[in-house]
């Protein structure tokens, strides 16, 4: 062993707090873009250069629907998101139960195939879905409902995987104990199985909504003349995004944070009430 090298105080501090430093860097990496979005939502651009902060204003927040076509696209995205989340969550949960609880011919094949939409490139899924719609004579009907069908398709795998993991991690004895304690199969499901799997279902639903709301590639290929929010942003990006897009982005971010915080606070309060 050689004698310890003399080093600067700062160098020593960084070495001793390496985990903290790295953690802060990762957080910065993640949050700086979001911070820019929040900042830009208060921007009053002086020129066509919408990417420079010019002057502070609340106008963007006061008139979020200054461009009505943006709010139309937003409303459509929310509708598609909610509807496809609902359908994908219900179907995916049922499929997960079947895959975990029932033995049927082709179960292991189904378990594998369910991963495919997650693994396949979106552009492949989108274009093959378009080919299917056109081949089956739906080329004239491309729009809200074809987007909905596409979103249900790719959300489904995520729901199945999330709910299946939750179900597989559940002790079988819990349901047996419920039946042993006079619960009928229906009561066993609603009193024991469902409450225990619910966090998985809820997580899957939130994931579905964000995937659906966010999707551009598959949507763009199957939308016909319909415009969703991501498509709108892409379209206007050529000629300068209106600052209201940043307002929507900030609101979406705050809503997600609120959901996480409410869930966490609820959890802690429930635990605290019992100790």
């Amino acid at each position, binding site marked *: 062993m050689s004698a310890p090298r003399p080093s600067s105080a700062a160098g020593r501090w960084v070495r001793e707090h390496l985990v903290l430093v790295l953690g802060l860097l990762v957080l910065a990496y993640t949050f700086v873009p979001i911070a820019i979005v929040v900042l830009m939502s208060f921007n009053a651009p002086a020129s066509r250069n919408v990417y420079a902060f010019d002057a502070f204003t609340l106008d963007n927040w006061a008139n979020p629907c200054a461009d009505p076509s943006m709010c139309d696209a937003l409303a459509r995205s929310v509708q598609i998101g909610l509807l496809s989340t609902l359908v994908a969550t219900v179907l995916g949960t049922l499929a997960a139960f079947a895959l975990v609880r029932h033995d049927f011919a082709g179960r292991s094949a189904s378990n594998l195939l369910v991963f495919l939409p997650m693994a396949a490139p979106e552009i492949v899924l989108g274009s093959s879905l378009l080919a299917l719609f056109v081949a089956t004579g739906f080329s004239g009907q491309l729009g809200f409902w074809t987007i909905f069908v596409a979103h249900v398709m790719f959300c489904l795998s995520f729901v199945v995987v999330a709910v299946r993991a939750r179900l597989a991690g559940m*002790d079988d*004895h*819990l349901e*047996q*104990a*419920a*039946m*042993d*304690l*006079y*619960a*009928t199969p229906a*009561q066993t499901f609603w*009193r*024991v199985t469902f*409450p*225990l799997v619910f966090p998985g279902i809820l997580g899957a639903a939130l994931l579905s909504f964000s995937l659906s709301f966010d999707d551009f590639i598959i949507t763009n290929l199957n939308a016909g003349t319909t415009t969703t929010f991501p498509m709108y942003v892409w379209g206007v990006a050529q000629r300068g995004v209106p600052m209201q897009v940043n307002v929507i982005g900030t609101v979406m971010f705050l809503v997600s944070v609120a959901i996480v915080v409410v869930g966490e606070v609820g959890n802690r309060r429930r*635990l605290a*009430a*019992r*100790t």
Partner: protein
Amino acid sequence: MSQVAETPTSPEHPPAAAHGDHAAYDGLRLRDVTKEFPGGFTAVRSLDLDVPRGSFFALLGPSGCGKTTTLRMVAGLETPTSGSITLAGQDITYAKPYRRPVNTVFQSYALFPHLDIFENVAFGLRRRKTKDVDAKVREMLELVELTSQARKRPAQLSGGQQQRVALARALINNPEVLLLDEPLGALDLKLRRSMQIEVKRIQVEVGRTFVHVTHDQEEAMTMADTVAVMNGGVIEQMGAPAELYENPRSTFVANFLGQSNLIEGRVLRRAADVTTVEMHGIEVSVPSPRVHTDADAGWVGIRPEKVLVGRPGEELDAPGNTIPGGVVSDVSFVGVSTQYLVRMPWGQELQVFSQNTGRTHMFTQGESVELSWRPEYAFLLDRSQDADAGAAERVGG
């Protein structure tokens, strides 16, 4: 193999006629129950079992012997391939688990993690829409000393407390039969001992039939009135713990329930009271009720603590023959007793447990000794059985 428990039942419930009339029997009765699993594994073979009402019954056996499958068939969580199960005269063979007056304490406790202790215990009452749920749950929590934990979640409780919640959750329903599936297995030794006494106390207090599945022979003997030793899907022997221990009928029971010395012998004479056996040139006698073979050859069995050890020529407190020529090959001092291994002239090592009364001589390795025992403690088993059967599966000493 068909056996019927001979345990005394509580005075209010005299044992019913042991044969025929199922409707008259008020306990739990299994008749010719077989369970085959898909894939051909037979977990339980043609099992007959009578558990008298109000008794504490233990199904004892190594893992895979079919004891848990038997329990699950009584609970309704498995359906027998053939045979019948009746409870207080009612045929429950195919009844749904939620339609039989039987509750189970699971090995993993299976407490509902999303419900607090109070709601876990109240679960069965609420499903049956019983009145006075609050008062009953409080009373039950008092019985298991968990009143202060009522609003906690299962995950916040220790293993012993969770175990008591599982017991309370099952007992509150006042089941005809309470099934316990190795409920103490996950606890450490000290806690397990105190829970054994606790569960036994509760059983006496509530006076219900308890069927306890365990692989721990000491636990079975401590807690149960009647123990059925199971092996390979059949019951090897059934009876009171002392009876099983003192008079085992097979090498499996002799080895699984405590330890035994099994010495090869040949039957010389059979009389009504005593059977004489020649054992490597020495004649020993075995009480005839303890002889469990019709053949000429057999295993003479003697428990290690019944064997007396002395210096050559020393007078031993045993009227039987003395077996000379032993050499101490191993000595372990365990405090309350000293355990010797004694190599006999025919090459076999016999185990001897000598109580440390303070008046016994401590032998050292290599010392020459003689062994003897009181003939009434010996038993004779079938020579065709494996002398080591059950020894490897035994838990602890």
